C-alpha cells in the first residue's frame, strides 16, 4: 500500500465516489441513501486493468474547480446523500480487496473541515488511504493540515499549475509527499482535444525542486494523451473521461467499460515505445 508507479507512464484514475451514473439499474435508483458499490466495482476493475492509483473524489455541492462532467457526477452523488464517511468506508473496502494499489482521497476543503480535520486524518489512515489532495487548499493555508497528515503518515498531495511561479512550485514540491499533481493547462477539469505545451514546461520546472513522481492531469482523455505525458512525466491522471463513461453506463456495465478503456490506454502507450520519463525530464515537448 503505497503510491508507486511501476511502469511508465503510470496511471491515476479519478472517480466521483457515490455517482450512480445517469442510468442506474432499477434496484439502484436515485431513491434511497448513498450507494458506493458501483464506485467500488469500477475502482477494483480499474486497478486490475492497470491503474496504479485511485483518487476517490468526495462529492461536493459547489465544485468550482470542476468542469461540467464532474459537476454533474458530484450533483448526482450529493443527491444520493454520499458523505465523506461513506467515501472513507469505500476506501477501506478497496484497500482490503487490493492491498497493492495507491489510494488517494480527493476533496474540497469544506466537507473535511466539517468532519473535523483530526478525525478525518485518523479515519483516512485507518482506512488504508495513502494520500490526500484538497483542491481548494493551497500550501500557504495548509499549516494544520500538514501537521495532521504527518501525524498519521498520510501523503499531502498538492496541485501545481502552469501559472505557479517558481517560488510557489518550490513550496508545493517541498511540502508534497507521494506525488505532485501537475495541472496540464489553465482551466477547470474536463476533456480536451490536444495537450498544450504548458504541461511539459511545468513538469520540467517542478523537477528542479523534487525527485517525487509527477502526475499530469486535466484534459487527459485518450491513449495519445497518455503516451505524450509519458514522454515527460511519471503518470497521467484521467478523471472526466472516465466519469463520463460511467455517466453513460449502468452500474452493472460501468466496471467492464472502464476496464476496457484503461486497457486500451496502456496498449497504446506500450506500442508508442516511449522510454522512461527520467531519461529526459527537462525536455519540453511541444504538442500540435
Amino acid at each position, binding site marked *: 500500500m503505497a503510491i508507486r508507479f511501476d511502469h511508465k507512464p503510470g496511471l491515476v484514475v479519478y472517480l466521483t465516489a457515490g455517482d450512480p451514473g445517469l442510468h442506474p439499474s432499477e434496484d439502484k435508483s436515485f431513491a434511497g441513501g448513498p450507494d458506493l458499490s458501483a464506485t467500488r466495482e469500477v475502482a477494483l476493475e480499474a486497478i486490475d486493468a492497470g491503474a496504479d492509483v485511485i483518487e476517490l473524489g468526495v462529492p461536493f455541492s459547489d465544485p468550482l474547480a470542476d468542469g461540467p462532467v464532474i459537476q454533474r457526477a458530484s450533483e448526482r452523488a450529493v443527491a444520493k446523500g454520499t458523505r465523506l464517511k461513506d467515501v472513507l468506508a469505500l476506501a477501506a473496502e478497496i484497500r482490503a480487496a487490493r492491498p497493492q494499489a495507491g489510494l488517494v482521497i480527493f476533496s474540497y476543503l469544506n466537507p473535511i473541515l466539517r468532519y473535523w480535520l483530526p478525525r478525518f486524518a485518523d479515519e483516512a489512515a485507518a482506512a488504508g488511504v495513502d494520500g490526500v489532495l484538497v483542491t481548494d487548499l493551497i500550501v500557504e493555508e495548509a499549516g494544520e493540515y500538514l501537521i495532521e497528515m504527518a501525524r498519521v503518515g498520510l501523503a499531502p498531495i498538492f496541485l501545481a*499549475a502552469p501559472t505557479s511561479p517558481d517560488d510557489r512550485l518550490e513550496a508545493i514540491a517541498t511540502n508534497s509527499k507521494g506525488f505532485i499533481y501537475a495541472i496540464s493547462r489553465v482551466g477547470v477539469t474536463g476533456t480536451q482535444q490536444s495537450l498544450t505545451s504548458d504541461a511539459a514546461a511545468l513538469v520540467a520546472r517542478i523537477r528542479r525542486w523534487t525527485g517525487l513522481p509527477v502526475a499530469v492531469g486535466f484534459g487527459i482523455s485518450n491513449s495519445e494523451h497518455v503516451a505524450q505525458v509519458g514522454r515527460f512525466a511519471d503518470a497521467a491522471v484521467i478523471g472526466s473521461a472516465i466519469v463520463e463513461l460511467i455517466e453513460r453506463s449502468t452500474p452493472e456495465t460501468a466496471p467492464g467499460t472502464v476496464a476496457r478503456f484503461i486497457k486500451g490506454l496502456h496498449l497504446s502507450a506500450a506500442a508508442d515505445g516511449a522510454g522512461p520519463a527520467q531519461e529526459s525530464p527537462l525536455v519540453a515537448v511541444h504538442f500540435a
Partner: protein
Amino acid sequence: MASVILPAVPSESRPGRFGVYGGRYVPETLMAALVELEHEYEAAKNDAAFQAELAGLLKDYAGRPTPLYLAKRLTEQLGGAKIYLKREDLLHTGAHKINNALGQGLLARRMGKKRVIAETGAGQHGVATATVCALLGMECVVYMGDVDMARQELNVLRMRLLGAEVRGVSAGSKTLKDAISEAMRDWVTNVRTTYYLLGSALGAHPYPTMVRDFQRVIGIEMKEQILEKEGRLPTAVIACVGGGSNAIGAFYEFIPDSQVRLIGVEAGGRGTALGDHAARFSGGAPGVLQGTYSYVLQDENGQIALTHSVSAGLDYASVGPEHAALHDSGRAEYVSQDDAATLDAVVRLARTEGILPALESAHAVAEALKLAPTLPAHDILVVNLSGRGDKDMGILARELKIQGA
C-alpha cells in the same frame, strides 16, 4: 465546532485574515493572479493619480457624496429614535455597487486587462460593472443565476443594453452562489487575460479588503454628515448583509467608536429551517466556500445549503469574512428580517417618505422600524439605504398585488 485550519504562521501577521476568518482557499491556478492583484492594488492605493481619478469619477460620474437624509415623517410616526437614511440609492446605476465597480474597473485598466468578468445576484453589481466597462471600453461578461435573471429581468436588460454579455447559470440553486462558481471557472480558464471584478466583500484575499476599501467612502461620509447635522455620533448604524459590502463600507469608520452599535441585517426569508433563509450567523457554522473561511449555511456533511430570500442580493450561503470576525468579537450585531417584514418596510418607506428602497436595503429599513420605537427620541439611527427599488417592481407588483395597466 469545526476545525479551524491554522495558518503556518500566526494569523495576525498574515494578510487577508480577519481574526481566524478570510484567507485564500482557491485552486492553485488562481494563486498567481491573486498575488498579482494584491500587489497591483497596494500600488494603486498609494498612487495619488489613481486615487484622484477615482475620486473624480465618484464625484462627477457616480454622484458622490450622497445625502444623509432625515426621515422626518417616518421618525414622527414611529415616535422614537431619529432615523437618517444614507442615500446610496441615489447613486448612478442605483446602488452602492458602483463605488467598488469604479475602483476595480480602474484597477483592471491599470493592470492592462481588456476583459472583465463579474457575478451578480440582484443585478446591481452586474449593472455597475457593465456601466464601468462601457465607460472604460472593456469587454464585459456577467454571470447570473437563472432564478435571479427571471426575478431581476430589468437589470438583465440594462446590462445587455450597456453592451455586456449576460450568461445564465443553471447549476445548483441558480442564484448568486452558483454565479460566483461559474465566474471563478471562467477566471481559472482565462486567468491570463481576464480581470474578475468581484462585487462583494467576499472571496479570497485581497477581495474582502479591497472591496471594503472601495466602499469605505459610505461610512466616511456618513460620519462627517451626522457630525455636521447632529454634532454627535449615531446610536446605531444599520445595514443589510448579503456578502456584506455595503454594510462593511458603512460600519468600518465607526468600528473604533465603541458607543455606536453596528447592526447587520440578514435575510430571514420565509422561515427558520435550513434552505428557507440566508441568516448565516444564526443558522450557519464556520466553513470554506468560494475562497474564504467564514460562516456558511451547510448541512452536517459540509454540503452547502440552499438559501431563500425575496431579495436576490442577500440570497447567499456565506458572508464576508470581516463580518464573521466582527460577529465573533461582538463589535457588530447580526439580526434578520423576514420576507414579510421587508415587504412591509418597502411600502412604509414608499408611502411615508416617497422613497422606494431595494428589497435588500428594505431589510435594514425593517430593522429600523422595529428598533426606533423602543429607543428614546434623542437616539439616532442611520440606515444605509444601499439601493433603489425600481428593479424590484415585478416582484413587488406580484407580492403586493399592485395592479398594472
